[in-house]
Every structure is written in C-alpha cells, then in structure tokens.
C-alpha cells in the first residue's frame, strides 16, 4: 500500500549511487524484499517508471527477489524457513519448539544495479 514512498526512497538511493559512479544510465536494479512485506512488485515498477522520468534511472527495470521468512529456534539454534501461508502451524522442525526469533523476511534492500 505504501509502494510510493518506498519507490521514492529506492530512486533517491539509486540516483545518489549513480552520481558517485559517473553512470550514464541505470539499466537494472536488483532488490531483495522480504515475503512479510506486502508490496506489489508491479506497482513498484509502475511508480518507479513514473518517478524516474528524466533521471539517470529512467526506464530501469526493477528485479525483485523475494526473501523467505526464516526463523531461528531459541530451543536448539536451528534455523528454518516458513511458508507464510502456514504460519499458524509453525514450530521448529528439529525439536518442535515454538520459541523462535525472526531473522529474515522483513527485508527492504537494494543489492546492486546494472549500469552503462
């Protein structure tokens, strides 16, 4: 729902890095976004296309890699991945503990960009 502010932020960061690196044109932006966030990939791209007009990133393609929800078991230190649709049945597959900490899945991260 807040694709717009998030997209503005992405553009700011990309433009700053482009300036520092003498970039003529940004072609692709690779992002990691956690599965727990509710962003619609398509909307991010649409907003980006609109906001980036006239900037060095105009026309860049956003490639979004979804980061799975991973928990760290506080019982046995095992880490395990969780299907967000099955979060109600969660427990550590190793020791059945129901005490765990979220270690990924809330990510909002720009990895890199392909530029000319």
């Amino acid at each position, binding site marked *: 729902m*807040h694709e717009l502010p998030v997209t503005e*932020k992405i553009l700011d960061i990309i433009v700053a*890095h482009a300036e520092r690196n003498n970039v003529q044109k940004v072609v692709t932006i690779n992002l990691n976004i956690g599965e727990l966030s509710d962003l619609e990939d398509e909307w991010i791209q649409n907003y980006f296309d609109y906001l980036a007009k006239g900037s060095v990133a105009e026309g860049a393609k956003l490639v979004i890699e979804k980061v799975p929800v991973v928990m760290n078991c506080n019982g046995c230190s095992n880490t395990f991945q969780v299907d967000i649709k099955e979060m109600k049945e969660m427990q550590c597959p190793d020791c059945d503990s*129901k005490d765990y900490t979220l270690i990924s899945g809330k990510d909002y991260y720009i990895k890199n*960009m392909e530029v000319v």
Partner: protein
Amino acid sequence: MDEVRLIEVKEDILSDNKAQADGLRISLKAEKSFLMNLMSSPGAGKTTLLMKSIAKIKDDVKVGVMEADIDSKVDAEKLVAQGISAIQLRTGGFCHLDANMVTKGLEAMDVKGLDLIIIENVGNLVCPAEFDTGAVLNVMLLSVPEGDDKPLKYPLMFTVCDVLIVTKMDYLSLSDFDLNAVRERAKKLNPNIKIFEVSAKTGEGLDDWTDWLKNEVTTFGK
C-alpha cells in the same frame, strides 16, 4: 554499445527511517517521555480505548496524544473535549506514519513534561507495521468483530508489536471469535507478545492494561 557494469549498492531502503527512529528514541529517553504507537484496522476502537485508558491514568501520568487518522480532525477533537492534550497530524492520505512525520508532530506538540506520548496511527494493519516510528512500545488493537484470523492475514503486524489488546470483548459471546486461537496464533508469530483482553465499553479488563502501562511508563521515567 557501452558495456554494462555492475555497481554494488547494498543499502537498506528503510535504513534512513530506522536511523531517525533510533535518534528519536534516544532524545525521548533523555526527556523521559515514553512514546507508544497504537495500531489497528479502522474502527477497531483506538480512540475509544485511548479515552478510557487515559482517564484512568491521567492523575499519575501526564499524557499527550498524536492523532494520525486519515484527514479527519474528529479524533483529536474528541480527546481535547475530554481534557486530553492532543494534536492532529495531517498525513495527507498517507497509509502510515514514519519517524520523520512523528518528529515533526512532536515539534508541533508541547512535549516537555509529558510522561507518555501516544500515537494513534493510521487505521491499517499493513503499512504501519513496516515503518519504525521511534516508539518504545508498539501496541496492536484487534477487535472481536474483526475475526480471529487476523494474525494469519497480517503476520508482520503481529511480529512488530510488543502488546496485543483484544478489544470489544463485550461482543465475544455474540460471535464465533476463538480467543484461544488468537492467543496461540499471535504467540506463534511473536512468542514475546503480551496479550490483554478488554472492552472499552464495559470497562472489562481495562485495569489490567492501564496498570501495566502505568508501570512501564513509570519505570521508563526513572
């Protein structure tokens, strides 16, 4: 054709907000002002709960409220009418508050001397969960009529909240809301979550919640 190069960016999109929120927490700690962020769906009962809760603690704790309901002044006016100091933030249709908006809101408020500042966040279970406001306590309100499947639909909200208040408990006998299922689902997403059950209408369970809150605020100010 120019060759394509790869440039490492490695930046967290929300890191500016996180940094600002951390800064806010430090300055509020110095002021001994406890910032609480209240989130829920629209109509779950945030304003009502705030009015009832503040009435119970206002002799011991000095409270201010920052209202962020989408483009409406009604909530802040309701609070002010009860003698509670409140300001209305204009969020301009934004779906959430971020640390920057909260910082500006605090500037517009007379924060000095407030023991407890409560943000009534925009009614929405998705977006507010993603943006750190600088609060030291995140509270989510879930009302019985909304149903017991909310933790399954909005898992992130449950993972970021320290406290879950199940409200409109006076509706419990009229509905098929399964309280145990909610407790279990919420604990699964967040084993440390603290759960209260209240009715702002009948006053049921309110003391447990307000006593606990008062204690948190007092401890923080020491």
